């Protein structure tokens, strides 16, 4: 049963095409887009017409799903009765190899988000889109957007140029800490590396399955590099990551930490404990065991009721109808997932919008 007032931590208003971002670019970049004939930045992470990219009943006759406010309200915000929804725009700006172009376009996305979405529906909040090739420029954009309290998170992709724990990225985490922004790591890649640890897959199915492995890698990296030792209050949210893989991953990582602690001596708490205090995961998709009893077991393995954050992942096709909450969760846990955990994770949600 969907409680009214839930906080949806992962929805995807969609950029209709690059033209839609032109009003938010300066003269120079507008000219470049037109002169160079750029019209789309669609990532292969979400093939435009694939069943995951748009659930069948959320697919418009023409154009992209979730690309108008009216649709998002009618298909997502109203039916799920969300009080707040966090918008994570997945346009392929991070894929560009030019850090200048990627920065300019990221900024355009953030402006588009603020003007055409956040300004128009008070339920909406958003993540700040940044490119990560040039960390200084990423921090500039974070500082710029942080002034707007409706931005509650910085969005990074699950696979990029380097593992996210590496120190080159720490100015981003410092900025997050400065402004009480969460770090959201979202499924997808900038494809600057092959999408799996063993090269390029042949099928989209493999690519999407591989997202879970990317999150596992990033979690390992952030823990082992000491991001949470240095930024103790940082909240990192894994978005559209799946979550049933988490217990087995922590068993492995924690076991290795016990024996290899000497290599990373700044990690003075068990990875399991670090995740409990600093890491959260969005609910959808739930890669569930085939039966309710199995789901109850995996919930027990999670060992904390604070980890999951409600999300519909709209307009992605992850569940039928309103069946976003998997069967087998207690009413208490559902309430925590839908309201308490998101509130505790996103401290900027508590600020009112002027």
């Amino acid at each position, binding site marked *: 049963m969907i409680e009214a007032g839930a906080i949806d931590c992962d929805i995807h208003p969609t950029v209709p095409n690059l033209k839609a971002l032109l009003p938010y670019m300066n003269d120079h970049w507008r000219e470049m887009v037109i002169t160079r004939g750029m019209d789309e930045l669609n990532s292969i992470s979400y093939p435009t017409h694939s069943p995951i990219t748009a659930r069948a009943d959320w697919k418009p006759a023409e154009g992209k799903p979730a690309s108008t406010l009216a649709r998002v309200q009618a298909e997502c915000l109203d039916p799920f009765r969300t009080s707040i929804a966090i918008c994570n725009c997945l346009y392929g700006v991070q894929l560009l190899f030019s850090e200048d172009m990627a920065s300019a376009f990221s900024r355009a996305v953030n402006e588009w988000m603020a003007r055409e979405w956040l300004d128009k529906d008070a339920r909406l909040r958003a993540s700040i889109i940044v490119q990560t090739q040039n960390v200084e420029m990423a921090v500039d954009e974070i500082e710029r957007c942080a002034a707007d309290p409706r931005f509650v998170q910085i969005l990074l992709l699950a696979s990029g140029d380097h593992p996210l724990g590496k120190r080159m990225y720490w100015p981003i985490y410092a900025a997050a800490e400065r402004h009480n922004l969460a770090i959201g790591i979202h499924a997808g890649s900038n494809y600057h590396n092959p999408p799996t640890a063993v090269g390029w897959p042949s099928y989209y199915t*493999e690519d999407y399955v591989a997202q879970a492995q990317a999150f596992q890698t990033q979690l390992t990296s952030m823990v082992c590099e000491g991001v949470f030792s240095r930024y103790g209050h940082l909240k990192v949210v894994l978005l559209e990551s799946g979550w049933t893989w988490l217990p087995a991953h922590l068993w492995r990582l924690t076991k290795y930490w016990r024996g290899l602690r000497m290599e990373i001596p700044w990690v003075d708490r068990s990875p399991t404990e670090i995740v409990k205090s600093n890491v959260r995961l969005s609910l959808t998709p739930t890669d*569930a065991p085939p039966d309710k009893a199995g789901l109850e077991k995996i919930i027990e393995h999670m060992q904390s009721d604070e980890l999951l954050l409600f999300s519909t992942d709209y307009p992605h096709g992850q569940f039928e109808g309103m069946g976003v909450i998997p069967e087998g969760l207690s009413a208490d846990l559902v309430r925590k997932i839908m309201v308490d955990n998101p509130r505790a994770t996103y401290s900027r949600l508590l600020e009112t919008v002027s």
Partner: protein
Amino acid sequence: MNVENHPLPGPVPTGAKSSRTAIADCDIHPVRSQPNAFDPWLPARWRAHLQTYGAGRRLGMQAGPAYPKSQPNAARRDAVPPEGGPPGSSLAFMQAQHLDPNNVALGILNPLQTGQGIANPELSAAICHATNQWQVAEWTSKDKRLRASVLVPYEFTEAAAAEIRHWAGHKDFAQVLVLSRTGEPLGNRRYWPIYEAACEAGLPVAVHAFGYGGAPISSTGWPSHYIEEMTGHAQSCQAGLASMVIEGIFERFPTLKVVMVEAGFAWAPAFGWRLDKVWEQLRTETPHLRRKPSEYLREHVWWTSQPMEEPEPRTHLLDTIDWMGWDRVLFATDYPHWDFDDPALALAVPITDAQRKSFFLENAKNLYGVQA
């Protein structure tokens, strides 16, 4: 730092007497006692080549990865043979320290640091072949409990298939061995000749963690630390296995058996659930798959137990094995590497006798067709 590589005076403590129940150890690493130990089976041309040019892999360093291990040779320091040589190089010591006291009735040899992953195709094939000869001459012919793996130059599939066909029918060989971090995902068509030859020979294909295929070892570039590499084998093995399932090798080769070695196993259930969900959602992409991915896993794939995950409470691991199936997991020690699991203590949770027997011996006997 006080690093001592020689054995200490005083008796080396071994496990309990061999009144222990018989077990199978599905991951043992025999090692050359000297760098030139394969010479009897290496043509002069390659011996000379090795002398001058070494054995370059898709790695920057001439020897060893840029993620230094946590112990020399990644080995247990108490496994140095009293007569000298690196850990794992003495059959006599392996028998005294491990095979006899632990009552290993069936031991599967997975030699590492051989020809596999060498960039030069002919050198790779030559060393693989020599190592296979060495396994018979120095190990399996001398201890009937041991079985060898057909090492293949897996990036050069014609030669790999030929090597499998060469040993097909030889009673000492239990499986074909490849490493997990291949140049392309293991389900990719270019590797299919290996599966074809393995099926012809009736041999399972074991995928052992490691290797350097040339791509960064994660989907997001190169991590900094050895601990990240070690943890990361779960991710790279998932990638290879996902590829095998989704590319349809179990449809194309219905008798193929695959063993995931030294990748851990607790990741398998959630991996199967995710595969099933995504396959269902994107079904029209893979019409060649006629069954759910988890069904292919259930019927074609086994996992060795080491490094065994350690949940707290430990009993959560029973849920994991329940989900996988008690016929899926094969006990292994990874002797002589550090991260050794002692059979007496490895699965110290309440399980039935039938489960214990399956885990420690029967699954391996059934998989490898051994009467032991």
